[in-house]
């Protein structure tokens, strides 16, 4: 069995993966909030431009977060920890990596955020 990734580079990769998760969550909320603001602003027309900026910024944040997530998960998978990759695939494509126990992604906004590392089969 491959040992769990360790060392500075693995720590950075775990951090990158978690930052990506946060960025995706924040970006998605930004898109929804911006769209909501734009809808409220529709009768008056005031505030639609900032709302559009919020939507564009949120979308970009979410996409960048996905790349960070996938990058971190890919790095860790190449070193033997398939948990983060499984978590990304399960949450975005509803797929599971064979042989990895299914992991339910947790909400980065919830109070038990520190358990995010539970996405890894190596770190808890």
């Amino acid at each position, binding site marked *: 069995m491959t040992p769990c990734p360790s060392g500075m*580079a693995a720590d950075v990769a775990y951090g990158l993966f978690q930052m990506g998760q946060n960025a995706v969550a924040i970006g*998605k909320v930004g898109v929804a909030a911006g769209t909501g603001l*734009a809808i409220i602003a529709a009768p008056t027309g005031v505030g*639609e431009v900032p709302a559009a900026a919020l939507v564009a910024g949120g979308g970009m944040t979410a996409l960048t977060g996905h790349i960070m997530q996938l990058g971190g998960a890919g790095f860790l998978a190449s070193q033997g920890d398939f948990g983060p990759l499984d978590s990304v695939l399960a949450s975005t494509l509803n797929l599971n990596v064979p042989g990895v126990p299914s992991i339910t992604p947790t909400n980065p906004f919830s109070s038990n955020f520190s358990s995010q590392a539970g996405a890894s089969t190596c770190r808890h």
Partner: protein
Amino acid sequence: MPSLRQWGTIAYFAIAVLIFLGFIYLGITGEFTTALDIGFVIVMWCFVVIAMKSGLVKVSPQARLPLTNWHAKFKVPSLLRATVCAVLAVAWLVFAGRVLLKSQLNDTWIGVIFAFGPFLGLLGLFVKFLMDGLKVTVGRR
């Protein structure tokens, strides 16, 4: 004392704020799922259309339905470059992870810089090309 029209506007914004707060509450106590995001937008859109049609909020005759004056402009070459940068960034980290494992450089600064330096560069290019390739504008009424 506010006029009937002002009361309508106050009620309109009060209900909109309540829907917003409901969305934030459900997201924090549960999870900000895609279904919740989309549900919130649909509920908000329906509420605003009903408010406009029923006269709860006074609108000018030229006022259009929510979001109909939004325009997204795509530059395909820039978006393709962004996609290539994203794929390269992820592929680079997978490759670098394998190289660091084989060469046992995981716990060195050289290893960290080797893996994440190019990744950050490619991620920056991805954001740059994405910003070039996608513009959301609001049309004139």
